[in-house]
């Protein structure tokens, strides 16, 4: 299945954070969460890896791997991006501001 599961801060049951590298966070604009934003995960070379749509509360989540990533958000109100380094498996929180 390639369809994006519903985006929440809560991880799916059985997610093993000792082996999985999860990038999660919210997209916001002026302090308010932005739902319905398109969030793109770009790898260390800037290549597209995955894309999800934020929930009504602005949440997104990716299952990645240790490494350098950029999380880029697109919304009709504006775009924004945040770079993140995941040095090891576990939960990595990323906040993205769009303007």
């Amino acid at each position, binding site marked *: *299945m*390639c*369809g*994006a*599961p*519903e985006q929440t801060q809560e991880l*799916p049951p059985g*997610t*093993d954070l000792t082996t*999985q590298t999860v990038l999660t966070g919210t997209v916001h604009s002026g302090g308010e969460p932005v739902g*319905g934003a*398109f969030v*793109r*995960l770009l*790898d260390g*070379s800037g*290549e*597209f*890896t*995955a*894309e*999800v*749509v934020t929930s009504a509360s602005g949440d997104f*989540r*990716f*299952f*990645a*791997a240790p490494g350098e990533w950029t999380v880029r958000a*697109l*919304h*009709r109100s504006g775009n924004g991006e945040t770079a993140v380094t995941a040095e090891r498996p576990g939960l990595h929180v990323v906040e993205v501001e769009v303007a």
Partner: protein
Amino acid sequence: MSRENVLVTADWAEQNLDTDGVVLVEVDEDTTAYDAGHIPGAIKINWKTELQDQVTRDFVDKGGFEKLLSDKGIGNDDTVVLYGGNNNWFAAYAYWYFKLYGHSEVKLLDGGRKKWELDGRTLTTDEVSRPSTSYTAQEQDRSIRAFRDEVIEAIGARNLVDVRSPDEFSGKLLAPAHLPQEQAQRGGHIPSALNVPWSKAANEDGTFKSDEELRTLYGGEGLDDSKSTIAYCRIGERSSHTWFALHELLGHADVKNYDGSWTEYGSLVGVPIEVGSGKAGS
């Protein structure tokens, strides 16, 4: 093959929402996207429950496709305009699938749901129903569908294009990064395959790049246009997107989509697999 025959713009779609003989169809695995808001007048098709046989790993047969389209109210002469989320992955898959069963007038909405939403265009939750039809499909056009034995024979002989992300190609990831990674099959790619991620054929807003950009892309990656081509990904939907770019936009004559893709190939016993980036010196 010209772009106008296979792609429509969001403006065109918006102007033709009520045009007789034009049927907009949203294709998503996640049907809640449609239910939460869809283009006015559009119907939905679920690629997984409606386009796949629910027992055998294969498509619904010709009779099943005829029943599906008849029930949906799509006629043989209708122009079907497909769109969806995920940068039109599943809409492109449905496009290829409609072509497989011989529907003549089918087009993709350039940019799909994403472009429509980024433009702030209207979505509605109104229920849509169309009177049923009596649809007649053609036998499957196997000239656009590759199976595993043909793929193995194509190693080193034809263009194989792996359109997954570089990390899936190398074997670092087994699935797109928005999905959990715990899967049983082997990682890597089919030997001799080029890695040209589907996303390189699309702009950030989900629209396809220009023909010139696409020619430069595939030429630069070493696609030999004197040879036939097989595209694959994980389950065949992203490679439908690349099949569309190569076959429908650039007009390459012999391009097949391998819908078994990595979930089949990476589970076969004894077939050759290559890991790593596949590029010399890296």
